[in-house]
């Protein structure tokens, strides 16, 4: 990029890179009335007192300005990092012995479950993927994205973008309505058809949530199930990250099957650490972790899928029972079994 601070005027800068104007105001640099000057001249013209008062460092600002413009250009032009597949190459168990598999390839649109006792290394595996491990994590695994290791710089700048996370503990904290919140997120992602996207996320989220909510509902007053439905729909549709890591999201109060279908339909790679048999059987494969290593990789078999149907029935029974309880009805087991 050629930005010559000695030649380009502020006005020309703003015309070429409209977002540069925000960068001046975000950094409290008063530029009004100086637009006709070159960038260098304008910056030299800023009052010493203002510079001291607002803790401005012109040299740092100039470096940051170039960096910011570079960054914004990449936001506009870059398509999301695409991860068509990830490959995990074996590392070592906690005791130092080698993991016993050749390689594990995961393609976009696949759902992989990760199971294993507490402390066995499930979260570590998710973190290896998040940081695109290159033999430099405690497991010494290698994670390839589209068949390649990432450069250090890519790993640490990409880490924000490669992976989106969802977990049981997450809550909304901002004081915004559903609509304002989605608007804020869509704006920060600089998407074009913002209104359509907001509407789409809202509809999908309501479809996942048991109880419906409105656009003007404050996000902090959504129920647990509604929050998670909104988080999942938002992550599926608006998050740039091609990989979604779900860490233990049991009893979500949402339609879990639809939620996974939504993520997968957006071509995400979904990895889910779980102990819930229904979720585990919804996966294409499951990875069994023990002592820090990948012990086994099991494809979900047809027989297991049959069990899934039965489990879903049981789940439905529990769901109906809970509702009956909530509305003061009498609980009768036989009747529920017949209805299911």
């Amino acid at each position, binding site marked *: 990029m050629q930005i010559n601070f000695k030649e380009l005027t502020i006005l020309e800068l703003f015309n070429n890179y409209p977002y540069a104007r*925000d*960068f001046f105001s*975000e*950094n409290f640099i008063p530029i009004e009335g100086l637009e006709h000057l070159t960038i260098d001249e304008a910056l030299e013209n800023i009052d010493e007192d203002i510079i*001291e008062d607002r*803790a401005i*460092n012109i040299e*740092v600002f100039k*470096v*940051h300005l170039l*960096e*910011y413009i*570079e*960054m914004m250009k990449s936001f506009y032009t870059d398509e999301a990092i695409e991860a068509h597949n990830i490959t995990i190459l074996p590392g070592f168990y906690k005791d130092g012995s080698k993991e016993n598999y050749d390689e594990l390839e995961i393609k976009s649109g696949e759902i992989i479950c990760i199971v294993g006792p507490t402390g066995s290394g499930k*979260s570590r595996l998710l*973190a290896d993927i998040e*940081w695109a491990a290159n033999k*430099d*994590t*405690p497991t010494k695994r290698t994670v390839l994205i589209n068949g390649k290791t990432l450069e250090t710089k890519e790993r*640490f*700048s990409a*880490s*924000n973008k490669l992976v*989106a*996370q*969802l*977990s049981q*503990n*997450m*809550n*909304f*904290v*901002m004081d915004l309505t559903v609509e304002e*919140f989605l608007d*804020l*997120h869509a704006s*920060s*992602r600089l998407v074009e058809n913002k209104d359509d996207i907001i509407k789409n996320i809202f509809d999908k989220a309501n479809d996942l949530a048991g109880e419906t909510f409105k656009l003007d509902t404050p996000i902090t007053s959504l129920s647990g199930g509604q*929050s998670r439905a909104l*988080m999942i729909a*938002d*992550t599926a549709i*608006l*998050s*740039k990250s091609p990989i979604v890591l779900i860490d233990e999201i049991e009893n979500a109060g949402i339609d879990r099957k639809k939620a996974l279908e939504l993520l997968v339909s957006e071509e995400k790679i979904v990895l889910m650490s779980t102990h819930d048999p229904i979720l585990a059987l919804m996966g294409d494969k499951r990875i069994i972790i023990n002592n820090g290593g990948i012990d086994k990789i099991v494809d979900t078999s047809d027989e297991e899928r049959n069990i899934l149907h039965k489990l879903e029935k049981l789940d439905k029974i529990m769901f109906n029972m809970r509702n009956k309880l909530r509305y003061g009805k009498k609980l009768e087991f036989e009747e529920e079994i017949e209805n299911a």
Partner: protein
Amino acid sequence: MDFITISGPPSSGKTSVIIKTIDNLIRRGVKVGVVKFDCLYTDDDILYEKIGVPVKKGLSGSLCPDHYFISNVEEVVQWGQAKGLDLLITESAGLCNRCSPYVKEIKAICVIDNLSGINTPKKIGPMLKSADIVVITKGDIVSQAEREVFAMKVQSVNPKATIMHINGLNGQGAYELSTLIYDEKANIKTLEGSKLRFSMPSALCSYCTGETRIGKAHQLGNVRKIDLGNYNAN
């Protein structure tokens, strides 16, 4: 010896992040020591003692904590060397958004948390804007979208920084941070002659020097008055 300065608003999770990071460094055989700077009170030194690293604390008391920090940093570096450390870490609470303790050529890390509100990155001055690495904590309890928006706000005030999300509770991300902050080839012997990244305010007013009485008669030196506009008594 390598040396890094870590700073961030109170309660942003500095100590947890540092402790989880040190865990990983110790496992790799790196000898780490910490000096904790605070204003009136801290018991973080006990937490560091618990994990068995040499630790000292400095309380600035009636002085500006960042001024106090920079007046003592050379002594601290000498202490670290005498202790035979591979890596010296200073932790200081950024209490004022105008100052920051970062020194040129010394790695500077700012820790802020997702709960602090999306306008916070804009409000924090040099402490955030001139850091090399920005660690964002408490991402495990907010939504993915809020995390993305917050990181974007940080990036827009410090586009050069490496941004890392670290969970101070379970240490996720701390391993990765430990690989970024420690350079075994670094050989820092003294800060004599080194410079601050950012000048601290030069102003001095009566209250800086201990004045307690209120009113014009007692205000000397650098006095600035609030602008309340023109108004009539009613």
